[in-house]
């Protein structure tokens, strides 16, 4: 189960208008707020309460109400390697996706001409097949007797002699699966850049490379931030890629949460890990947004 991160923010409400219209605005907000309450806030609260439960003294294997903060300490002490690995894999996948997506988005935004719409459709097209199916396909592509592995092996480029069931496969899978979420915001951001700014840059003695680093790149920062977040956050909580493409040594925190929930039925530990993951991501995201300084660009 991928963690839910509260990205939905309520649209700004103009309270300065006449009373009747502001009341109708609040009425319009009710369905959304109700949805948020029933399917996000209440489950979140339940999850939090579960993360503090303790094992029943009379019936071992079941859990009762409690405020047992040690659940968090124990869970993190036991599973910190998977935690760390999740962030490393998600970080690598995000960097790779950015490296692949940026030139592509740049091309679509500035050079594609009539091919633009088609290319955008192609970017989204894989989403028509299920996430699971696409990841299974990578199993075949990266299989030990597959073309990719044997080619790389004949060039002696693989230290382990294989790709499948290694961290490389997991990162490749993550990169592939979340690539559209990187491309689309980057495209939107690049497409919004006034071409005259690029011309102004070259008019002011900036070579094409300098124009890119001094004008295009900073102006596409909102897209870079949005794209990296949309890639990093789900990738950090993902378990399917590690499950299908990795070995036991490549398990991520998503896998741990899943096994604790489904197999061990250790709900407090699983909940505590989910909560810790959410908190860690929130802290990272806030730090990241603050550092990238995109507030005054949007």
């Amino acid at each position: 189960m991928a963690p839910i991160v509260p990205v939905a923010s309520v649209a700004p409400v103009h309270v300065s208008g006449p009373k009747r219209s502001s009341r109708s605005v609040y009425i319009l907000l009710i369905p959304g707020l109700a949805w948020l309450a029933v399917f996000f806030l209440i489950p979140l609260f339940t999850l939090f309460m579960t993360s503090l439960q303790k094992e029943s003294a009379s019936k071992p294997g079941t859990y009762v109400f409690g405020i047992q903060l040690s659940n968090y300490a124990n869970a993190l002490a036991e599973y910190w390697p998977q935690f760390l690995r999740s962030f490393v894999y998600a970080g690598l996948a995000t960097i790779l996706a950015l490296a692949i997506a940026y030139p592509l988005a740049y091309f679509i935004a500035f050079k594609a001409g009539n091919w633009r719409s088609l290319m955008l459709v192609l970017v989204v097209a894989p989403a028509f097949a299920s996430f699971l199916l696409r990841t299974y396909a990578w199993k075949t592509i990266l299989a030990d007797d597959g073309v990719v592995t044997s080619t790389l092996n004949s060039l002696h480029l693989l230290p382990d002699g294989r790709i499948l069931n290694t961290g490389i496969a997991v990162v490749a899978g993550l990169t592939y699966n979340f690539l559209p979420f990187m491309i689309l915001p980057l495209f939107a951001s690049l497409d919004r850049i006034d071409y005259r700014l690029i011309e102004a840059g070259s008019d002011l003695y900036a070579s094409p490379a300098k124009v890119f680093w001094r004008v295009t790149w900073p102006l596409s920062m909102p897209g870079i931030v949005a794209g990296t977040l949309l890639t990093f956050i789900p990738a950090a909580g993902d378990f399917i890629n590690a499950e299908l493409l990795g070995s036991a040594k490549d398990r991520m925190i998503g896998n741990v949460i899943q096994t604790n929930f489904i197999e061990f039925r250790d709900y407090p530990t699983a909940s505590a890990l989910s909560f810790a993951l959410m908190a860690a991501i929130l802290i990272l995201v806030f730090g990241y947004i603050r550092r990238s300084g995109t507030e005054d660009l949007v």
Partner: protein
Amino acid sequence: MTNEGPRAGTSRRVEDLRLAGLTKVFGDQRAVDELSITIAAGSFFALLGASGCGKTTTLRMIAGLEEPTSGQVFIGDKDITELRAFQRPVNTVFQSYALFPHLDIFENVAFGLRRRGIKHVDAAVGQMLELVELSSLARRKPSQLSGGQQQRVAVARALINEPDVLLLDEPLGALDLKLRRQMQIELKRIQSEVGTTFVHVTHDQEEAMTMADTVAVMHAGRIEQLGHPADVYETPRTVFVANFLGQSNLIVGEKIQGGESVEVNAHGVRFTMPGSRNFAPGSQLVVGVRPEKMIVLDLADAGRIPSGQNTLHGTVTDVSYTGVSTQYLVLTAWGQQVIAFEQNSIVGDRCAVGDPVVLHWSPQHTFGLDPAGGLSSGIDPSVLALESDAEA
């Protein structure tokens, strides 16, 4: 260091800008057609024309943002045609300013210097911001500035590089009328202070005439006429210029006598003009006169007209009082509407609708043009549509 403005300390010679057969073809359209002009160093040159006449394309080719199909651009003796935009000693003030939204005003102005590897920019930027009177706003972002302030930043950002030529692409188009007048004066002041060659593209004839010392009227990729604003206005050489720059009354006629003094018969009326003011190659010609050159007299006062004046009889069909002047529409015997502006300096009654009047003006204010291109060339199409609606 002296404080004589941003050019202090540089004794670089400013050189002429020369376009030689500059041509740009888009598809099957010749946007700019064999343009050859020399723009003197230090002059304020205006390229005036309607949208689509090729003036912006010309400017972009000088800037290096557009590649000419053929022809060359020279600065002094140096051919810069093959240089890319960032290699040219030319800077542009863009139509919508194109200020970098992610940089503050200081960094916007410093951009060109920094890209050329100049480390210490504080003094130059400070001086430049002083020149455009924006020193207090150095740390603001462009979006926090008014249109007029953004415009001045755009000028500062270009001028700080001490370009050989400063290109201005409709720089005042986005400003309201009052601010535009103010900025016109401001730009002239800056130009005379820095002495850089300014090439200014505009569709606003008043702007071109008030600011520039040379105006080139452009039409369909070619320059129709080039000269001092007053000369171009007083002596238009084509129907396009006569109509585009101000207003003109144009009457079709036939030359009956050439030489020093040209005589024309138009609808049975005789007009005279100096031979030097006749630009029609054949005997068919268009007699032109500016509305403010005509004096409107009540028919009863016709005796007061000095001899040698051109005269035209008609009936007043409309009088509009505009404060400074009064506009008369006068219908001639052959059914043509002519327009005359009278300064409101006379004492007594003005002529009224229905009055028979006589218009007179000096032959020195008369010009003769080639009728080949039609009489409506250069008139704003929307005005033409309005007129034909009124007739229908």
